[in-house]
C-alpha cells in the first residue's frame, strides 16, 4: 500500500524524465550514428547509417579539440577562481557586522539572478577597446589597453571572468550557510588552547567546509562544461574559435549548419562527460558521509 502510494507520486516525474530526457537521448544516440543533414530532411532516402564515422570524424576535427581545450580551460581556471571567490566572500560577509551583511550578500548574489545575456552585453560594453570602462581605467594608470574580445587568449580570459563573476555568488551563499553550521564551541576551545586566526582558519574552518567546497567544485565544473550563453553573446566563439565551447560548437553544427549527425555525436560526448561528473559527485558524497 505504502509502496504503491509512493509510486503514484513518483510516476508523473518519471514520465516527464522518460519523455523529455531518455527518449530524446536515445533519439540523439540514433542520430549520432547517421549522416542526418539538410538533404536527409528533404528526402529520407538521403539518410544513411554511418556507424561511428561521426565520432572518428570528431577525433580528427581540429575545431572539436579546440572546443575541448577551450571548455577545459574555463573549467580548470574558472572552478578554482569561483570557489576561491565564494570562500573569501562568504567568510567576509560572515565576519562583518549584521548591518552590512545584507548589503554585501545581495550585491554579491545579484549577478547570479541576472539574465546571462543582459550581463554579457553589459560586459561587452565594459570591455570595449576604445570606450570601455576597463580600458579607460587602464589608460588612466598608463597601462597598455588590450583588444579584450579580439585577441584569442584575452577573449577566453574575459569569458572566464564573466562566468566566474556571474557564478560565485551562488557558492558564496552555500559556503556561508556551511560556515554558520560550524559550532562556535570549536572556535572557543581553539582560542583557549591558544590558536591564532590563521590556525583557526586552517584547522577548523577549512576542514569543516571541505565537503561543501568539494560538492561546489563538482557542481561548478559540471556547469562550466555546459558553457554557452556567455561566449555566444560576448564573442560568438571567436576570435579564431578561441572561445568556441563544446556546446556552442554543437549548436553551430546542428542548428546553424544542420549537420545533425556530427552535432549529435558531440552531444553524446558531452553526455558522457556529464555522467562522469554525476558519478563522481555521488561517490565523493558517499565517501564524505562514510567518515
Amino acid at each position, binding site marked *: 500500500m505504502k509502496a504503491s502510494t509512493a509510486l503514484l507520486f513518483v510516476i508523473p516525474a518519471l514520465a516527464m524524465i522518460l519523455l523529455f530526457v531518455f527518449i530524446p537521448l536515445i533519439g540523439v544516440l540514433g542520430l549520432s550514428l547517421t*549522416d542526418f*543533414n*539538410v*538533404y536527409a*530532411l*528533404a*528526402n529520407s532516402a*538521403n539518410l544513411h547509417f554511418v556507424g561511428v564515422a561521426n565520432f572518428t570524424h570528431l577525433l580528427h576535427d581540429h575545431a572539436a579539440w579546440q572546443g575541448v581545450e577551450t571548455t577545459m580551460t574555463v573549467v580548470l581556471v574558472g572552478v578554482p577562481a569561483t570557489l576561491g571567490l565564494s570562500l573569501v566572500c562568504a567568510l567576509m560577509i560572515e565576519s562583518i557586522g549584521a548591518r552590512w551583511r545584507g548589503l554585501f550578500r545581495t550585491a554579491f548574489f545579484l549577478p547570479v539572478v541576472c539574465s546571462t545575456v543582459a550581463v554579457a552585453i553589459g560586459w*561587452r*560594453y565594459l570591455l*570595449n*577597446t*576604445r*570606450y570601455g570602462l576597463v580600458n579607460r581605467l587602464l589608460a588612466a594608470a598608463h597601462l597598455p589597453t588590450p*583588444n579584450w*574580445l*579580439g*585577441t*584569442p587568449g584575452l577573449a577566453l580570459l574575459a569569458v572566464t571572468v564573466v562566468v566566474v563573476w556571474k557564478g560565485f555568488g551562488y557558492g558564496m551563499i552555500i559556503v556561508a550557510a556551511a560556515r554558520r553550521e560550524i559550532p562556535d564551541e570549536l572556535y572557543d576551545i581553539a582560542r583557549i588552547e591558544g590558536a591564532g586566526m590563521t590556525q583557526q582558519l586552517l584547522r577548523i574552518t577549512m576542514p569543516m567546509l571541505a565537503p561543501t567546497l568539494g560538492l561546489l567544485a563538482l557542481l561548478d565544473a559540471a556547469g562550466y562544461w555546459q558553457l554557452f550563453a556567455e561566449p555566444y553573446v*560576448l*564573442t*560568438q566563439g*571567436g*576570435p*579564431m*574559435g578561441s572561445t568556441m565551447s563544446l556546446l556552442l560548437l554543437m549548436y553551430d553544427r546542428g*542548428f*546553424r*549548419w*544542420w549537420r545533425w549527425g556530427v552535432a549529435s555525436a558531440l552531444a553524446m560526448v558531452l553526455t558522457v562527460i556529464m555522467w562522469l561528473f554525476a558519478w563522481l559527485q555521488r561517490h565523493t558524497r558517499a565517501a564524505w558521509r562514510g567518515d
Partner: protein
Amino acid sequence: MPRGDAPYRGSAAHSGGHGVSRVTRVPVLRNALTLAAAALACAGCARSPCGLNVWAVGVEASALQRMVPGFEREHPGTRVCVANLAWSSAEARLLSAVAAGDPPDVAQVGDTDLSTLVTLHAIVAQRPVATDFFTEALAVTRFHGRYYGTPWYVDTRVLFYLPGILHRAGYRRPARTWRKWLQQLAAVRRVLKPGQYPLLAPINEYEFLEVLALQQPVPVLRDGDRYGNFASPTFRAALRFYKSLFAQRLAPRITDRQLINLWWQMARGDFVFYVSGPWNIGEFRRFLPPQDQHLWMTAPMPGPRGPGRSLLDGSDLVIFRRSPRQRMARAFVRYMLANAQQVRLFELTGDLPARRAPWILPPLAADRKLRAFRVQLGRVRPFQKIPEWGEIMHGMRRMAEQVVIGGLPVDAATTQLDRRVNYWLAERRALLARGDNAAGAHAAQKRP
C-alpha cells in the same frame, strides 16, 4: 555618450508587466490583481486570431509591422501577425519550424538561405508578381526553371565613407582601384587621431572578403560547385589584399560585437570607410542628428583593376507549402511588392526595391546617397545557389581570421579551407553523381 544608447531605446519601451507573481503574496492586492488579469485576458480575446502568420527579420520585421495595417484594411477581418526574428538565428528558426512541420504562412528569407528551403521542398513556386525585377535578383529565386519566392528588396555592398576626412587627406572621392585605395587609406591614417582607423572591416563579417573574392574572374567553387577553389591564384590575391589591410594597421582587428554604436563612432571619425549594405542608409539617418547627415556618403566598390563588382544579396518573400492560406499569402506578397509599399519599405529601412519602377519615384530618385547603389547594382554578381553556401562563407571567414590574427600563411590557409569545403560538399557530390535533384539542378547552370 548619450547617443550610444540610441539603438536600444526602442526595445526598452516594451518592458513592463513583470513582478506580478511577487504581488500575489499580498492578500489585499489579490482582488486587484484578479481584475487586472481579467482585463488583460479581455484585451486578448478582443483581438481576432492570426489570419496570416508572417516571419521577418530585424528592421524589416519592424517595418512590416507598420505596413500591415494597410493590408488589413484592404482585407477586412484578416489579422496579420508579424514575428520578429534576429538575423543570427533566423535560418535556424525557420529550418526548425519546417522540420517540426509548423512553418509560418509567409516569411522573409535571405537569398543565401533560399536554396535550403527549396531543397527541403518547404516553399511553393510563385509566378513573378511583376515584370520589372532586377534580372539578377529574379535569377536568384529561380530553381529548376521555376521561381521560388519573390524578390522583396535587393542589397549590394558599397563604400560608406566620410568625405570630410577624405578631403583633409587630400582626395576628392574614393579610389576606383585596390592599389589607389590602399594609398588613400594610408593617407587618411595620417590625418586621424590615435585609436582611429581608416577602415572598419569586422573580422566576424564575411561579406567584405566575399566581395573581394567575387571581383576576381575565377569563382571560389569549381566543377559545378562540387569542390572548393580557394587555392586559386586569384582568390589568394584577394586574400592577400584583405590581409594587407590589417597588417598595415589600416583596419582594426575587431568584431562587430566590439562596436559601441557604429554610426556614432563613424561620425566621430573612428572609422572613415566601411563596406556595408543599404540598410545602413536608414541607420545612419536614424542614429545621427540632422546636422551630422552631411558627414557621410556612399561610393561604388573599388576593384582589382578599375571599378569593382559587388555581391548581390537581398531578401525574398516566400510562401510555405504547408500554409493553408495560400491565396491570402499570395495577396500579401502582391501587396508588399506594389510601388507604394516598396517605397515605404525604403523609407522605413533604407532597403532597396527589388523592382525597377519604384526607383524613378521621388524619394529614391532624389536621394544622393543612393546613387552609389544604383551604379553598383549594374555591377553585381550573385553567389552560388547551394545550401552549403552559408557554411562555406563562414568557413572562409574563420580561415581569414587565422590569417589576420593567427598569422597563418595565405597558401596554407587556402589549401586547408579547400579540404574543409570538399568535406562539406561530399554529400552534394554524392547526390549529383546519383542524378538527384535535391542538391539543386542549378549546378550545371552557368552564372551570368
